[in-house]
């Protein structure tokens, strides 16, 4: 296994798998589904249980996989699972349970078209599922949206760090484009897995065997007394507010002198980068605002960036999901329009430019 920091060329899925081993992940529990089966295949091929001791197990279903993540993360270990849209739908129970028991599980959705079994082609139609929570109750999952193979490699360590910092499930919302495309990437350096002493220190709440110096650790999302349950929920809401205050991440391009903004995440952001260049050639001054954390959504930062602009186009490969968060953030100050393709069709940059012209620029004349 390469230890030097060299530039290599690989698929997003493969980069994620290799980076997971290097960031000291303790376990992976997954199930095959297109377009992300390369992740578990890469792990099976690399045999990290022989090198770092990382456990890799193909579970019998996504339901089992997410519950293995619950058990493993509950014992203080850095464990993760990956799947695609219909599999993530199956995992919602486990995610809600992890949120309720405050367990730092990490999972990855390499999105495909839906709803239901859908298509194996890419889409971004799980934004609601990711940010509004598909499970039950008042909870939020930290959501990171990579837009490159490099970010697929970098975000796995970040997801673990954030999950453990806040004792909350964290998700990487990728898609079939980012997962399957090949790009240059510098994989992170190898970090050793934590020892038992380190885990006991970092995770005093973990269930690893009760030593005489403490009470038993019990991880549960159940609380039948409403007064206590309300306090638990309020404390979680305070946690979410802290995450909102401290963990927003986003990126911008070509915002200097821009009259319009295109808001896009993930692969749609990559297509938008090209769209902006094409628009520039046609004399249109437009910039890209790319949320990296979809939850917490960069609402304050977007509001600030929108000042003095003429309009916003939200380019996302779905029927209109992130556009709702953009509209909430902008609160009527500017026109906000949506452009998207459905059913697994990935739009061309020219389509985004056309949408910008027909839905925003021409309408204001």
């Amino acid at each position, binding site marked *: 296994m390469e230890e030097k920091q060299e530039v290599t060329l690989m698929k997003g899925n493969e980069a994620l798998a290799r980076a997971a081993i290097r960031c000291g992940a*303790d*376990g992976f*529990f997954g199930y095959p589904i297109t377009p992300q089966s390369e992740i578990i295949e890469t792990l099976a091929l690399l045999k990290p249980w022989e090198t770092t001791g990382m*456990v890799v*197990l193909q*579970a*019998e*279903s996504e*339901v*089992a*996989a997410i*519950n*293995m*993540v*619950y*058990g*493993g993360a*509950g*014992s203080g*270990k850095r*464990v993760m699972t990956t799947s695609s849209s219909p599999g993530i739908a199956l995992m919602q*129970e*486990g995610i809600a*349970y992890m949120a309720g*028991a405050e367990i730092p599980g990490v999972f990855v959705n390499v999105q495909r078209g839906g709803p239901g079994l859908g298509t194996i082609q890419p889409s971004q139609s799980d934004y609601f599922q990711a940010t509004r929570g598909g499970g039950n109750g008042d909870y939020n999952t930290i959501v990171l949206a990579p837009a490159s193979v490099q970010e697929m490699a970098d975000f796995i360590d970040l997801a673990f760090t954030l999950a453990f910092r806040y004792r909350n499930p964290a998700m990487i919302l990728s898609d079939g484009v980012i997962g399957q495309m090949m790009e240059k990437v510098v994989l992170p350096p190898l970090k050793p897995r934590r020892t038992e002493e380190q885990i006991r220190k970092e995770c005093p709440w973990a*269930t*690893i*065997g*009760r*030593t*005489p110096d403490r*009470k*038993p*650790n*019990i*991880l*549960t*999302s*159940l609380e039948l007394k409403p007064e206590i349950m309300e306090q638990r929920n309020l404390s979680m809401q305070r946690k979410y507010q802290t995450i909102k205050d401290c963990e927003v991440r986003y990126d911008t391009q070509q915002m200097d002198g821009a009259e319009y903004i295109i808001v896009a995440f993930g692969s749609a952001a990559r297509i938008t980068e090209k769209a902006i260049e094409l628009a520039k050639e046609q004399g249109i001054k437009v910039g890209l605002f790319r949320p990296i954390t979809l939850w917490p959504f960069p609402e304050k930062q977007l509001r600030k960036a929108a000042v003095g602009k003429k309009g916003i186009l939200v380019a996302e490969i779905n029927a209109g999901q992130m556009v709702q968060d953009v509209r909430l953030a902008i609160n009527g100050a500017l026109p906000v329009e949506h452009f998207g393709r459905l059913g697994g069709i990935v739009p061309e940059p020219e389509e985004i430019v056309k949408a910008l012209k027909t839905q925003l620029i021409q309408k204001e004349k």
Partner: protein
Amino acid sequence: MDTSIISPENLVYSKPKLMNDTTMHYCPGCSHGVVHKLVAEVIADMGMEEKTVGICPVGCAVFAYRYLDIDWQEAAHGRAPALATAVKRLWPDRLVFTYQGDGDLACIGTAETLHALNRGENITIIFINNAIYGMTGGQMAPTTLIGQKTSTCPYGRDPVLHGYPLKITELAAQLQGTCYVTRQSVETAGAIIKAKKAIRKAFDASMNKKGSSLVEIVSTCSSGWKLKPAEANKWMEEHMFPFYPKGDLKDTINK
């Protein structure tokens, strides 16, 4: 009363030390209490108090974590074997077991149960089978007997409407990954002593990396069956034992 007999050297039996003073919420006469005692005793006998992680179910035993002073994780309904799989693989020197009812293990959790057992995970699954859904008020379970009346089969279980009772322990005994599959009960002192031995055997096997074990405890549910505890024991002996016969169904620990 002559109290001179009360002294530590004369002590023959008392509440197990891993069991705390919290009054258990189970109905009077419920088998859960007895099995909880046995689990507490076995863990202490093995000296594994500091290295045990229990996974509790959704069912009457959802609060098992209140009564035994070890680390516990509460699993979603039926998912306990998946949690236990991860914990044991990540912490191989810990004693990891699940404690589940028949609805949890043999209905919604069938896949997780069979796959964890078949993978030969070094865990023990303790299966409390009382042929009914106790916690939610006495509905039919996959293990409910033909003719048995519950709130969702008030005229008695009818194979045409409801299918046949599921003998999941027999299925488990056929899986290559299992090393010890047994069926016990806890209605008499003699049966309890045998059940304790079975639990100890299973726990030892998991620590010696022999594979997975399933210990079924055929149990009563006074509330669900609407019988007094002593009558429930009798009903169990007359109706449950013939269909769910006791004994070791598989023992390949020393192969």
